[in-house]
């Protein structure tokens, strides 16, 4: 049996806040094949975003493992406490996670998270700058700019290149965030409540864009609490009591 593009095996994540311990993920399992569009639903505070962060190598689970193309993303659980210190920067797993975020993963967040000092084009180009040396940038700059312009034209912002985030509407900002997440052609696009902060029209436009991307073969993992948004995915999973379950057919 071929290994899936992305898999989660028994992922546990607990938040410690003072004396309180909040166990959010209690053994999540997931198999994601290339080209799939999966929506993860759940109540507010159920741990959807946490799971997305763990899958996207942004957060480290206490137990369990995430595999990308069959290779573990995190250190073995017994070594993880050690690598959770500042020494983490020295571990090959951390270097591997950084490489995944740079090349294989793209993220879209509910609150856009654009850099306010940069204009639209610079925000998108930043993804390509990360991981490129100063010397390398001079050779890669032209191609990166063309990619950025292509993707910005696609999301309908080709005319707003020099605008700053503060000068854009919520829908436009989210489209910039989408362009930033796609400019390096990631293998998996993680979208955390991408329409959560948009009005119905902007939300619908964004979903149309996601569906188009999916139609072109883009693998997407989307977190949402809106069933009508989730229904547009190939597969809907529900996060309940820290575990993923297939959602009941509607």
């Amino acid at each position, binding site marked *: 049996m071929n290994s899936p593009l992305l898999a989660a095996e028994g992922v546990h994540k607990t938040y410690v806040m003072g004396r309180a311990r909040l166990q959010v993920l209690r053994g999540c399992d997931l198999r994601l094949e290339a080209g799939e569009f999966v929506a993860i639903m759940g109540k507010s505070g159920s741990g959807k975003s946490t799971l997305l*962060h763990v899958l*996207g190598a*942004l*957060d480290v689970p206490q137990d369990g493992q995430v595999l990308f193309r069959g290779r573990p993303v995190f250190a073995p659980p017994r070594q993880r406490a050690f690598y959770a210190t*500042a020494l*983490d*920067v020295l571990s090959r797993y*951390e*270097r591997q996670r*950084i*490489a995944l*975020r*740079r*090349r294989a993963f793209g*993220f879209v*967040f509910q609150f856009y*998270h*654009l*850099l306010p*000092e*940069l204009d639209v084009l610079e925000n998108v180009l*930043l*993804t390509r*700058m*990360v*991981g*490129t*040396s*100063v010397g*390398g*940038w001079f050779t890669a700059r032209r191609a990166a700019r063309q990619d950025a312009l292509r993707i910005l034209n696609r999301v309908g912002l080709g005319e707003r290149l020099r605008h700053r985030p503060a000068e854009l509407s919520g829908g436009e900002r989210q489209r910039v965030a989408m362009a*930033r997440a796609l400019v390096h052609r990631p293998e998996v696009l993680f979208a955390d409540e991408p329409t959560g902060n948009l009005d119905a029209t902007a939300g619908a436009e964004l979903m149309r864009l996601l569906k188009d991307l999916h139609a072109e073969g883009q693998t997407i993992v989307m977190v949402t609490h809106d069933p009508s948004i989730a229904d547009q995915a190939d597969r809907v999973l529900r996060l309940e009591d820290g575990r993923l379950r297939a959602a009941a057919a509607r």
Partner: protein
Amino acid sequence: MYKLFLTFRYLRKRRIAYFAIAAVMLCTAMVLIVMSVMGGFLDQLKTKARGLLGDVILDNRSYSGFPLYEEFIADVSAWPEVVKATPVIYAYGLLRFQGTSQTNTVQVVGLRLEDVYEVNAFRSSLYYETYYPGTTTLAEQRQPLIGFDLEQPPIPWRGEQGEVVGLGPRPVLPPPFQEALEKSWKAGLPEAEARAAEFAETLLAAGLPPIVGKYETVEALGPPELRGDPRPGLIIGRDIIARRLSDGRYERFWYTPRGCLVTLTLLPMSTTGTVDTPIKQPLRYVDDSRTGIFEIDSKHVYCDFTLLQKLLRMDAAERVDPATGDTVGQVPPRCSQIQMKIAPGVDARALTGRLAAHYHSLATDPRFAGRLDLNDIQLIRVIEAMTWEQSQAHIIAPVEKERQLVTILFGIISLVAAVLVLCILYMIVLQKTRDIGILKALGASSGGVALIFVIYGAAVGVVGSTLGSVGGYYFVRYINDIQDALTRLNPALQVWDRSVYSFDAIPNTVRTEDIVAVIAAAIAAATLGSVAAAWRAGAMEPVEAMRYE
């Protein structure tokens, strides 16, 4: 690439960084100004203190002096390292200007003027010698008086403000002074006529260069003359015969015209340290010396070596056996010091050891067997050779220490800039926490994120220290103009009072190595100040950073 890109974007867009830059700039300028002024002060002090010393000095620190100096000079003159050597005598005395009640305690220096001219820069410190070359001697001489050339048509006489007060005959000096002055007019008066005019008598002839200096005039309108009995010449420290004004010029005392009589009272001392009866010697003031060091110019007078040696009974004399009263030989003549000019490129410090060793060897040299008694040998054994820097360490060392101390103190104050950079960068990191999370989500490494803030700190250091250096450089360069402007505004704001300091102007030279050192230190401090903030930024978890409120 993103590190440089974001660093310069934050530098431009975050106005709070301007405060960090301003702090670094001010501290850089402050340290550079202090280093330059204190360094310049020290350099000037070294240059001026050097004026009256040879490259190497031999001294036994005894008022009694030491013998065999002529023999030693004859020996070392054959050494290729030694260009010229001359003996000097130091003594203490009282100086009294005749016809006045002014008496000064002075250090009397006996020297061979022509030799000293070859050993050090004493000649350039002389006032009259500059404008009347060849007229300053320590030999017996009479007082020159300004007379008048009645055969020439009258000329306008001017008052102190340059206003014409009437017509009068042309003033003339007696030979060789007039000839020497005319010679220097033709050659162009040294240090420019304008400077000479500062000291010119009110007898400023229209259309003619001034008669430089202070002379008495003949009692009736008549030809110039030389008056009084011939007396040995005495060169006097400038601050003894003139008062330094706050603008740096000198006002000569009314009772000190060139050639006036002074009396020097000396205390001769035997080789055994016994003080004899004080001796009074009349002399003529022939010139004045200005080294620029107040301690020297307010205390030193200079007379002929042979005269002083004789007055102090340091010349050759019969040696008498105290038990029998019989003459048992000759006491060799003594001097207090030998000054030497050494050949260029010779290591003075290395030479001092050889010179001292050679002098010590003279005590047992068979050539002088029977000429020295135990006391003479003892005086020779304690002779030390030193470079002029070692000799003047008591003047230079305190200023050098002060310079180091002040630089360290201002350097410590400059740590404020580093702390400010730390605070401001920490604030920026807090403000940019969410951006840091985004960068990490995009694949930025912890080290990469930390490096953004390290580069940011270094950039603050580079910009701040460059601006500070430029500001400091121009402040130092125009420091005297700034002070003059402040003084014009309010005399109480005058910081550099030229009547207090030895130097005419505040040192205004900035050394390149100081600029480089200050910029390097500022960049290092600012970079160091950024480390804590950079560490925090690098250690942030992306998810936590993005959730930061």
